[in-house]
């Protein structure tokens, strides 16, 4: 189990008062807060080691290069990659998916090929494929979701064929918190010879992930959702696939030999890292990975499950007419934590999510309201904008009680 009160001391922002109240930060699916260790890593890099990497032979350049590459090794180990070469640093999960779409997609997709996505994808795992599909004459197919947000695997099986070249699926939905059975989905993709990409933006921060166990060819992750800085993320790709793929961007660092009319590409992972990378934030990501590993991903997963379960039970006090507090609250997605974690979306009859969020903000409670970058999912489930509470390592049951009080306050203001 996590020692939450000790963890909370590591996060300077948790000492802040918002509108005179202690911050209750429940918008972790959007981005997480940063521990002092990550902030220190950034300050230390800029204060003591700042230099451009892979070029200079002076001391600072050597130090900065070693720190940057050390972060890559940490990330590789964290997700169980075979080697650091399989980790490409990018800005965020969005860029990681775009890298695959533009590099692999443009090189290997042909007219009539098919890509399978699901109806619950974040826009970042939809729009890049729409763009490539249009350019290459490729067809997109979608695994339907049911009312609980579960993927219809029977239909998935039907959609798979030799035309399927890629299956790209979100691991944990950022709207419903549903945990998708990615290992099974990946296995089925591989059986027809398709590649499998996992959008790990929400799962890598909150559960143990070993790419080998998940039948995954590509994995897209953002550092800022797992205690790291913004502006850095990574793509994991199997080495032989990355080797076959052409560069994504051209420039310095990604070439081996350059002539006026042609060039030879650098090896992995540098082929995909054109120009001076985000050195400081990559080192910050390394520190975040260290922090998470010290806590243990298994413990983090258990802690969030416990919070999610508690929040589901508290919120359902407002879900049924027979409960003392009255009805009006609706929870979307799974109602148990069997296949759900970290994220709960809900709505309250008669109060728009914006208004709920505003009233909660006055109590110092930060939640998200809106469509959460997944409009097709909202349309399919016929859900309007929702309120979303999402948890992380520093949240407590006490904070969920405060959320409940805030919701009751909103109901009072709106007289419902």
């Amino acid at each position, binding site marked *: 189990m996590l020692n939450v009160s000790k963890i909370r001391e590591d996060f300077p922002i948790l000492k802040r008062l918002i509108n005179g109240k202690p911050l209750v930060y429940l918008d972790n699916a959007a981005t997480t807060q940063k521990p002092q260790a990550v902030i220190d890593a950034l300050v230390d890099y800029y204060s003591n080691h700042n230099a451009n990497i892979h070029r200079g032979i002076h001391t600072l350049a050597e130090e900065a290069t070693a720190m940057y590459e050390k972060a890559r090794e940490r990330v590789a180990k964290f997700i169980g990659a075979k080697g650091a070469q399989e980790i490409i640093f990018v800005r965020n999960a969005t860029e990681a998916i775009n890298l695959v779409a533009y590099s692999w997609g443009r090189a290997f997709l042909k007219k009539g090929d098919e890509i399978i996505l699901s109806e619950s994808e974040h826009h970042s795992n939809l729009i890049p494929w729409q763009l490539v599909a249009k350019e290459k004459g490729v067809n997109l197919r979608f695994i339907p979701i049911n009312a609980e947000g579960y993927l219809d695997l029977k239909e998935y099986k039907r959609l798979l064929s030799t035309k399927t070249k890629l299956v790209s699926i979100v691991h944990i939905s950022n709207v419903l918190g549903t945990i998708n059975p990615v290992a099974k989905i990946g296995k089925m993709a591989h059986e027809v010879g398709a590649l499998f990409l996992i959008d790990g933006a929400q799962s890598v921060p909150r559960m143990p992930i070993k790419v080998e166990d998940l039948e995954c060819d590509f994995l897209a992750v953002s550092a800022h959702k797992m205690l790291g800085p913004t502006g850095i993320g990574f793509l994991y790709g199997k080495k032989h696939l990355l080797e076959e793929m052409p560069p994504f961007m051209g420039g310095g660092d990604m070439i081996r030999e350059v002539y006026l009319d042609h060039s030879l590409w650098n090896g992995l992972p540098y082929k995909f890292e054109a120009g001076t990378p985000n050195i400081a934030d990559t080192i910050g990501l390394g520190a975040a990975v260290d922090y998470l590993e010290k806590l243990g991903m298994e413990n983090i997963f258990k802690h969030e499950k416990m919070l999610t379960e508690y929040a589901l039970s508290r919120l359902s006090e407002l879900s049924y007419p027979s409960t003392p507090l009255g009805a009006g609250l609706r929870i979307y997605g799974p109602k148990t934590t069997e296949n759900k974690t970290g994220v709960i979306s809900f709505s309250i009859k*008669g*109060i*728009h999510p*914006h*208004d709920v969020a*505003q*009233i909660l903000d006055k109590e110092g409670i930060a939640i998200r309201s*809106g*469509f959460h970058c997944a409009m097709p999912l909202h349309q399919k489930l016929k859900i309007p904008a929702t309120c979303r509470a999402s948890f992380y390592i520093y949240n407590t049951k006490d904070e969920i009680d405060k959320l409940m009080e805030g919701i009751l306050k909103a109901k009072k203001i709106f*007289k419902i």
Partner: protein
Amino acid sequence: MDDIYRENILDHYKNPRNFGKLKNPTASFSLYNSACGDKIEIQLKMKNEKLKIIEDIRFSGEGCAISMASASMLTEKVMRKNIHEIKKLNTQDILDMLGITLTPTRLKCALLPLEVLQKAINS
């Protein structure tokens, strides 16, 4: 901020004035704010082709208390007004009408109905 959910705002939210659709509108426009899901449609009936006076107006859609109250109050405000006056309405007029102060994000909610109305007039 303290009292953005004032009695009159909540009243307009819960009992929106001029809510619904017109039979034969002369002009209509709708906008969708994809970030928050607010959707507002405004329909107008113009009287007197030359003076262009709004004879009737309806709004429909869904949104937060601020955008709905703003739409409801706006329809009352512009009823039987000349469209040249309506074209001149600005942010401050809407804030004065609502009688509250708003953060930049919520200001967007408050201004959506005016944007829809002005686009309807120009359409």
